[in-house]
């Protein structure tokens, strides 16, 4: 075995000489063209732009040239009184990332809303769970519009001297480094060519970088779509609670935006989603009120069992938090704010390869029922920023797998359990089979009663 290895080494030395010469040639050529970057970020969405500005602001990376490629044109952001129907719930971990990279100041200047409590209930068993103190002293998440998050990140990114942003850059193909080279080659549809040491794929769930990396990807479509809209309540109040109710067709969630507006995310079957987009605004509002508060066909056995269990838990004095609020009545829907988008699950078995890494939806895609999707992506950004900073501070090259694998293992350790939990919840609540309804009802009650368990769930969702 060893002898064969040594022979192999001797034989390959001639090849090596050739390899170095070729590589040198490529390197010189690309340097002359001025198109070599240390890091190229593919995809200028929320996660990609945030990654760009976070890396651009990292002191230990300030001698690195970074390029951000975005396929769409640069749309100027216009401040409007009307709220966008696409909002994200940023968890405290993401909030910290934005404070660190400076983008939070921009969001703070404009608008965001703090969610202080989360109430999740099951329409089929009338069981519920709450997160966050009943005194509304916790900060569970920050509701911010997608456009605003993107603009804040873009704003900070433009302050970085070592960062170049290229809009309207449609990528024709990526060629990742193989055994004989150390750089990735990127060719745009307009013929422009770039090389880089590290290619970061932030190009969403249809990632072309992932395809070029040839990693195993497990995916399936949920037979569900999300209907989004901006809703208006009949009166102003302290809108600090996010409500989520599991219906047999999927969860419906109300996420607070202001004292009288909430954002709707209604996950349902594609047929139902199509119907909801087609009906008049009055009918739509009636449907939502019914979905959020209306009665549902419940099994009497399940109700008896869950109320008995509730009495027992109260007798044992397990749960101290009995206050439960119902969402107020919805008065109207903002005109033109209705839209729908498909759901799916996706998981890349590897996030890294020689000279490349996947970030955000390119690596993982989940059901939005826990509002975790984009937060996992921002978690990736924070971790990758730390890992690359450490790599450079330890004299490594950016593409060094010894460091990149720290990113992969740290993120998979966090992402995979979260994804499985979310996918599990989706499947558990996607049925009206009575025994399952009973068990999940009892489970929800037990979880609600067990404070330490709730704390663990909160901690997993907060970073």
């Amino acid at each position, binding site marked *: 075995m060893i002898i064969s290895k*040594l022979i192999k080494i001797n034989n390959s030395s001639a090849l090596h000489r050739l390899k170095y010469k070729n590589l040198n040639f490529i390197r010189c050529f690309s340097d002359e063209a001025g198109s070599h970057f240390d890091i190229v970020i593919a995809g200028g969405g929320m996660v990609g732009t945030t990654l760009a500005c976070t890396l651009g602001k990292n002191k230990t990376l300030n001698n690195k040239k970074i390029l951000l490629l975005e396929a769409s044109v640069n749309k100027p952001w216009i401040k409007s009184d009307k709220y966008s129907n696409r909002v994200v719930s940023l968890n405290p971990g993401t909030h910290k990332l934005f404070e660190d990279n400076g983008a939070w100041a921009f969001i703070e200047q404009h608008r965001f809303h703090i969610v202080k409590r989360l109430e999740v209930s099951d329409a089929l068993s009338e069981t519920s769970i709450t997160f966050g103190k009943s005194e509304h002293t916790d900060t569970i998440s920050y509701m911010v519009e997608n456009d605003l998050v993107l603009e804040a990140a873009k704003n900070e990114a433009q302050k970085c001297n070592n960062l170049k942003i290229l809009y309207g850059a449609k990528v024709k193909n990526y060629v990742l480094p193989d055994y004989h080279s150390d750089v990735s080659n990127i060719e745009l549809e307009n013929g422009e060519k770039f090389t880089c040491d590290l290619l970061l794929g932030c190009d969403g769930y249809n990632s072309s970088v992932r395809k070029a990396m040839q990693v195993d990807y497990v995916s399936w479509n949920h037979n569900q779509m999300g209907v989004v809209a901006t809703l208006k309540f009949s009166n102003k109040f302290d809108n600090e609670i996010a409500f989520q109710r599991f219906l047999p067709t999927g969860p419906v969630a109300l996420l607070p935006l202001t004292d009288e507006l909430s954002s709707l995310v209604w996950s349902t079957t594609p047929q139902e989603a199509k119907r909801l987009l087609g009906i008049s605004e009055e009918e739509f509002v009636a449907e939502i009120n019914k979905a959020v508060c209306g009665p549902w066909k419940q099994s009497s056995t399940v109700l008896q069992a869950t109320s008995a269990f509730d009495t027992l838990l109260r007798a044992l004095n397990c749960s101290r938090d009995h206050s439960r609020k119902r969402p107020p009545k919805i008065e109207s829907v903002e005109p033109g704010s209705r839209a729908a988008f498909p759901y799916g699950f996706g998981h890349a078995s590897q996030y890294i390869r020689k000279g490349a890494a996947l970030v955000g939806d390119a690596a993982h895609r989940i059901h939005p029922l826990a509002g975790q999707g984009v937060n996992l992506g921002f978690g990736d950004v924070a971790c990758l920023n730390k890992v690359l900073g450490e790599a450079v501070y330890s*004299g490594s090259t950016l593409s060094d797998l010894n460091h990149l694998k720290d990113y992969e293992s740290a993120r998979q350790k966090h992402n995979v359990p979260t994804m499985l939990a979310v996918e599990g919840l989706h499947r558990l609540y996607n049925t009206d089979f009575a025994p399952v309804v009973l068990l999940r009802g009892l489970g929800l009650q037990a979880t609600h009663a067990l404070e330490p368990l709730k704390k663990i769930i909160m901690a997993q969702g907060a970073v």
Partner: protein
Amino acid sequence: MKLCRRFPMKLQQKMFSSKTTIDPQEIALFEKLTANWWDSQGPLKPLHAMNTLRVPLVRNGLINQGVVSKENIYSCTPLKGLSILDVGCGGGILSEALARLGAQVTGIDANPSAIDLAKHHALKNNLSINYLFTSIEEHAMENIEKYDAITASEVIEHVTNKEPFLDACVECLKPSGSMFMTTMNKTIFTEVFAIYAAENIFDLIPKGTHQIEKCIEPEQLQRILEKNYLQTKEIRGMFYNFLTNEWCWCLPTWISYSLHAVKPKERGRFLQKQLIK
């Protein structure tokens, strides 16, 4: 340009003075490794992975010694302006990492093909490193008290006459300069795991790379350095997980360890020797 000029062994020996500490057998062994030196998953992958420990060792060691200026500490080039001699640099795995941190690195090795490879690799990566095909004894003659730090990582276990080797290293060091070394301890654990198992069972490193007789205990190493008035700052154990190809610090120094020693501030070695006389 021919990348690997192979020197006949006799010529090599002639090139160095008679007092050289270089072992021709060791050179022959490393010649064979030259082709795959920069393959981070190849036969030298433990050395590539070791950079995650030894580069921070040098960086933090120098920062803690106060030789790094304050504005550079958290910058991308913390070692800017410092001159470092990497003894036994080989293909330059450590030298390049230190150069990327801003240090002016001189790498010396007694293996001409490794030096050729190192020069080529540094050129390819736009790094200016002064690689020299020489021995530390030769180098020390013209470079007395010239370097802020000297690294000899995984080198001393390949040197037969350790005292003259270390004496020469210390001569090159500036007053209050730092000496960083990593090597293997002379213990039964090294013999069984790091030498026998690693070379024969797991095929991690080429057969015959290490000999237990040439390994040195930390106390022994410390004693030689203290004879040269170097003060040992720190001895730390290192552990290699061959399954994940990762190194980590550990308390026991049973197999691998690192050592950081510092030369006294004001008086040079020769002055001190004369004072004692």
